[in-house]
């Protein structure tokens, strides 16, 4: 190619890029919403969903997730497991500064885990999970830490990127109760993230400014504001009026209105989340796998997805969602809508039609007590299930309550026969805490399911470090779970994110992963 031609081609190629770059507003500001006043401490037991995303901007972890949801470097640059899988060494990034200018070192990592997360007296978020697997964190040198494990934990790097921000040791020195460290947790947090808190207006908003000293370069946005708006309709109105740049939409019924707005763009994200029905294994009726299978065959899940979720979901086959491309398999037992088969399986399990149309066994009618919460779409879903089960002669008795009372009855007391809910986990196939026999009754294993074969597989999955070995184990585990149905798997919903077109640079993977790359976001000039 001759030089002038080359130059022209290059100019043609670069011009749009240059134009795009010049469109970036250097003083850009993005506005988000959150539902309540956040707690600026990812490990605080008072830090719930309203704090999670904001904390991602302030407190990076050792790892974060890349576009394929694999753990990639953040405050750690590389890591390696020992041959027996009992020790993981993490090399930390040099030159990272806390928001107050102090250097970030291995001491901060050791403090976060040893003094906060693994401290039994504190009951930090997810601490049971960490304490089950991690013995302690040793400082090898100022830029190297070593996680000493109680048992192999192949998914450690993934968990380190899941709302596991590192706290500054120097700020917590002399603090007796880290949860009552109000100055830090509610007003002036100090992190290493691309943004730092500059103003908290009680009950109204939190203003963040870019951290010019961020190790990854100057963030493109100058400011981010989180408005505290609990009401979802008010959030929607703010988005439509342009006062807010991004919301996640829980109710898909409002989507048509949003789609027709030329300033907005709808982004559908899959995530590691699945809805389930839990059948309490304390109840002997549900220990019969035929009963569990029958109750799933009785549900027309595609129709339910269409009516409740307006189609924004796909039927689930197990706890490993399709977003985990390396591990997900759908070559497992399937349960298409088949009421005849459901009835047949129930008959095989000894359930015979009673005089009032409700199935009976040993003179007792098949009635399932189902507590449900007035929360998002749980009630309409449970009502639909009630209808489908009625068609096969199973009566579900609903009891609706507020979320807090629901947790008390279902999770704390395990006083239920059937219930609907969902799990959201890091994008890793390691689901041991949710299915292990050891966590039945007290831990995350809500149905109280016990199966030694599954326990063995899940333990093996934690020991296997290579992707191929893990794939083999977790394929087998998925096959087993689809056949045995520890939970009745309902669907993998899509997360609906609606954002203003001017807000750009988001990766569009999952919201949690997107917020780990906030320095890449920008807004275009109007």
């Amino acid at each position, binding site marked *: 190619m001759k030089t002038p031609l080359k130059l022209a081609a290059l100019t043609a190629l670069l011009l749009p890029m240059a134009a795009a770059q010049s469109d970036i507003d250097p003083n850009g500001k993005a506005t988000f919403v959150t539902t309540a006043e956040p707690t600026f401490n990812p490990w605080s037991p008072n830090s719930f969903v309203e704090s999670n995303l904001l904390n991602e901007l302030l407190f990076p972890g050792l790892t974060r997730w890349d576009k394929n949801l694999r753990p990639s470097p953040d405050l750690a640059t590389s890591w390696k497991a020992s041959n027996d899988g009992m020790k993981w060494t993490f090399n930390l990034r040099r030159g990272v500064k806390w928001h107050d200018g102090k250097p970030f070192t291995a001491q901060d990592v050791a403090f976060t885990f040893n003094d906060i997360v693994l401290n039994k007296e504190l009951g930090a978020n997810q601490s049971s999970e960490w304490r089950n697997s991690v013995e302690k964190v040793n400082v090898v040198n100022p830029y190297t830490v070593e996680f000493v494990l109680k048992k192999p934990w192949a998914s450690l790097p993934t968990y380190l990127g899941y709302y596991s921000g590192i706290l500054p040791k120097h700020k917590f020195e002399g603090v007796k109760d880290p949860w009552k460290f109000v100055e830090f947790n509610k007003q002036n947090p100090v992190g290493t993230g691309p943004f730092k808190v500059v103003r908290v207006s009680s009950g109204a908003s939190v203003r963040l400014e870019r951290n010019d000293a961020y190790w990854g370069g100057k963030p493109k946005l100058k400011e981010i504001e989180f408005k505290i708006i609990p009401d979802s309709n008010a959030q929607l109105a703010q988005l439509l009026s342009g006062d807010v740049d991004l919301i996640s939409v829980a109710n898909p019924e409002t989507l048509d209105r949003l789609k027709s707005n030329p300033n907005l763009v709808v982004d559908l994200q899959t995530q590691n989340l699945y809805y389930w029905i839990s059948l309490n294994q304390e109840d002997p009726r549900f220990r019969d796998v035929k009963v569990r299978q029958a109750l799933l065959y009785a549900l027309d899940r595609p129709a339910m997805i269409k009516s409740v979720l307006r189609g924004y979901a796909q039927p689930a086959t197990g706890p490993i969602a399709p977003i985990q491309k390396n591990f997900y398999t759908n070559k497992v037992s399937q349960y298409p809508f088949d009421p005849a088969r459901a009835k047949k399986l129930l008959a095989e399990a000894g359930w015979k039609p009673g005089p009032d149309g409700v199935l009976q066994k040993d003179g007792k009618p098949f009635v399932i007590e189902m507590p449900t919460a007035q929360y998002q779409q749980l009630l309409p879903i449970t009502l639909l299930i009630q209808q489908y089960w009625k068609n096969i002669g199973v009566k579900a008795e609903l009891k609706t309550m507020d979320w807090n009372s629901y947790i008390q009855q279902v999770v704390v007391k395990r006083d239920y026969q059937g219930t609907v809910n969902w799990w959201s986990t890091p994008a890793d196939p390691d689901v041991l805490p949710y299915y292990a026999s050891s966590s039945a009754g*007290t831990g995350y294993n809500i149905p109280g399911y016990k199966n030694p074969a599954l326990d063995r597989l899940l333990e093996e999955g934690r020991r296997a470090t290579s992707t191929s070995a893990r794939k083999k184990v977790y394929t087998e585990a998925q096959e087993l779970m689809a056949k045995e149905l520890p939970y009745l798997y309902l669907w993998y919903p899509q997360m609906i994110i609606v954002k203003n077109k001017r807000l750009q640079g988001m990766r569009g993977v999952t919201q949690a992963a997107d917020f780990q790359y906030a320095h890449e976001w920008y807004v275009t000039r109007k």
Partner: protein
Amino acid sequence: MLSFFGQRLGQGAVVLVLISLITFSLINLAPGGPSSAVRLDTTAEQREVLIKQLGLDRPLAVRYLEWGGGVLRGDFGTSMNGGEPVGPKLLERLGNTAQLALAALVLSVVVGIPLGILTALRKNSPLDHAVNGVTTLGMSIPDFWTGIMAILLFAVTLKVLPSAGMYDASGGFSLSGWLRHTILPASVLAFVMLPNLVRFTRSSLLEVLRADYLRSARAKGLSERIVILKHALRNALVPIVAMVGLILPALLSGSVIVESVFGWPGMGRMAVDAALGRDYTTVMAVTVVAGAVVIITNLVVDLAYTLIDPRIRHD
């Protein structure tokens, strides 16, 4: 007069203690608790730790007495959700709610009383019927719906007013910013309060207009303006003042919904958040302070009677 004042204050204190006792018992007996708040993935072990940290493992009576002792010393305790001292935060939020309630009250009074007078004087006229229709709407439409519709019209479609918050994005106070943010929520709150005030003013005035002394006043040759403004209205005002006194507690409770819809950082929203999160200390503080506000308002209204109508004596 002084003994009346003292007596009422004493009664108020007893009522407050009762309110606190009932609220304390109710929230503690309700299922759930701070330790089971919000997260499905909190384990039994973590919950036990939390229960101990928050002191919820101690007897109810001990906790109540401790709380009461704190309140007497002016300490409302710390929030179970985040450890912040409740008192200063509540004061700030109460101030925000007072601003909203006061704006709504002014709007209701400025619009409601003249409308009531006008409809009384023009009883059964088209204006009377029209106002009657609008006030019926105001009474029957829930405030959250009115709020959302107002947001859709003025913030989303016309884009003339902000849809949520109290101040401009800069976060600082400016009168114009405050006014712009207050118009919508205050109007919605006033729209709900207005019907009572209009109707009450109307019926109160109509009753007075039928009184004999007004006929005498007219017979003396006084102008209609003087008859209405000086004689009729003054007497009609006594029950209207009582009505305003009744509206205040309704404004406080109405603000719970309106504050949530408009993202207004007031006491109503604080109460909702605290109740949902089972933040016992905050729920207690909000209830007691709201109760005290209502009791004091009623006392002030009673005192106002004597100023309007010296015939009423509190002996």
